[in-house]
């Protein structure tokens, strides 16, 4: 099956003055298949966020290539990026910070729609519909991020991410900042949206149980490299890598 997103030998080195350079991501290759939920676990500092920032082109890779539907997007810049963001969207870890404090949630959700040619009125209406799809009342589009709870804000952030119907949704610790019951609600929402909108997820997380429950396949990252890959149940039952074993033990 043709991969939706393929990453080949991606590397990111942060130059450090006077000290040894910091290699955050080391020669990583993997593929995301259509319709799949790919989990990615690893402790903080293992390079997960650096990796997705490179995939979403917020960060320039030092080496390696990124392919979207077979097209090399490693060097796409400026206005051309819109084409990529039509397919790839991301939900961030801290819900409260992911909306402009001076703009309403509706304006935040409508921003992408307007960038893709929707009129102001149409995108306003659509933003309200998207909020409802994500389990919030339409009236929330007039609220500001500081006026809603973390879970509600994350729902709004998901509404923004799915506004232009991407094929790939990257969830960068999207549930980590929420408490357990809200986490479960957000996961249920994500499962529902995936069924309805036919998306693939790249689900980044440090909670093993969550990954086991939610993902079709899992990558284990450690110090910038992928140390293990497989079906979550198998990986957790008989981990091949020493680090994975430690990670599972420390979770229990």
């Amino acid at each position, binding site marked *: 099956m043709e991969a939706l997103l393929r990453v080949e030998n991606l590397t990111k080195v942060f130059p450090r003055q006077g000290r040894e350079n910091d290699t955050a991501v080391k020669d990583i290759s993997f593929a995301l298949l259509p319709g799949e939920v790919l989990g990615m676990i690893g402790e903080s500092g293992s390079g997960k966020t650096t990796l997705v920032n490179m995939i979403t082109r*917020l960060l320039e890779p030092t080496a390696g290539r990124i392919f979207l539907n077979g097209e090399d997007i490693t060097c796409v810049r400026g206005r051309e990026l819109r084409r990529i963001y039509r397919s790839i969207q991301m939900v*961030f870890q801290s819900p409260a*910070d992911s909306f402009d*404090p001076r703009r309403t949630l509706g304006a935040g959700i409508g*921003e*992408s729609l307007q*960038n893709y040619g929707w009129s102001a009125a149409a995108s306003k209406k659509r933003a309200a519909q998207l909020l409802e799809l994500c389990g919030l009342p339409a009236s929330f589009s007039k609220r500001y991020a500081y006026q809603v709870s973390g879970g509600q804000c994350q729902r709004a952030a998901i509404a*923004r991410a799915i506004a232009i119907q991407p094929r790939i949704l990257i969830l960068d610790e999207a549930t980590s900042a929420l408490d357990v019951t809200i986490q479960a609600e957000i996961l249920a929402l994500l499962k529902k949206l995936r069924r309805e909108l036919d998306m693939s997820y790249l689900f980044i997380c440090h909670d093993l149980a969550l990954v086991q429950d939610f993902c079709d396949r899992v990558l284990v990252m450690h110090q910038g490299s992928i140390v293990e890959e497989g079906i979550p149940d198998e990986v957790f039952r008989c981990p091949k890598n020493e680090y994975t074993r430690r990670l599972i033990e420390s979770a229990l």
Partner: protein
Amino acid sequence: MNGPAHRMRRLHKNGVRTRLTVFCILALALIACSLFSEHLCPYDPYAQDLENALAAPSATHVLGTDRYGRDMLSRVLIGSRTSIASTLSLVGIIMVFGTAIGVLCGWNGKRLDSLVMRISDMFLAFPGLVFALAVAGILGGGLHNAIFALAAISWPKYARIARNQTLALKEATFIKAARLSGSTGTEIICRHILPNIAGPVLVTGMLDIGTMMMELAGLSYLGLGAKPPAAEWGSMMSDARSLLQTVPWVTFAPGVAIFISVMVFNLFGDAVRDYLDPKAGER
């Protein structure tokens, strides 16, 4: 939330709001004065009447007359146009220009940023008014040149503020989210950066109005600003300083005018800052 601390904060907030309203009205009154000064003048501010020169304040000439017999009240009123209007336009210019440079530097970073920031370091290294004197001296007198000189030395402050705020915002999650929404750099600056840095820049501008008014009057006093016979408070004071001991009202009238305007604009700036300060309580 009904504790004493909360009530104190609300009282404080009310005080700030009252102060803001009062000084806003006073500042607007001053601006209105300068706008309609032509209609408020009892006499032609430039009409000489040598027989009536240096007359003491009386019912006909409320603030007396100067050495050419010109009515002081009319001259102070018409002078407010020069002083207030040029100060406001000066602050407007440096606010827009400095912020634009600062945002561009902060957003683009790299070489442009280091270059412009070194230049602004150079400007900041000189004592302000001395540098303005030099610039105005080189350009020659005249109100426009004085405004230009003060603008040339004052923009780095705004560029600094705008740059630092932009640098901090650039890493914010909501800016990344805006990028992912497909917004280009220019769109992000207009939609997210500028509205978010407007507060601190505006407050700095408000607090600068008084200072700029003083400096502009200072340059005129030294003969580098408005030229006689144009009525301008600084040059009017300079004109009358040799008469200070015999006919003090000729110096006092423009002096008091400067004092009041600087005071009102400074207190207005303070009130705006306190009002926008989140620590002063709930909005």
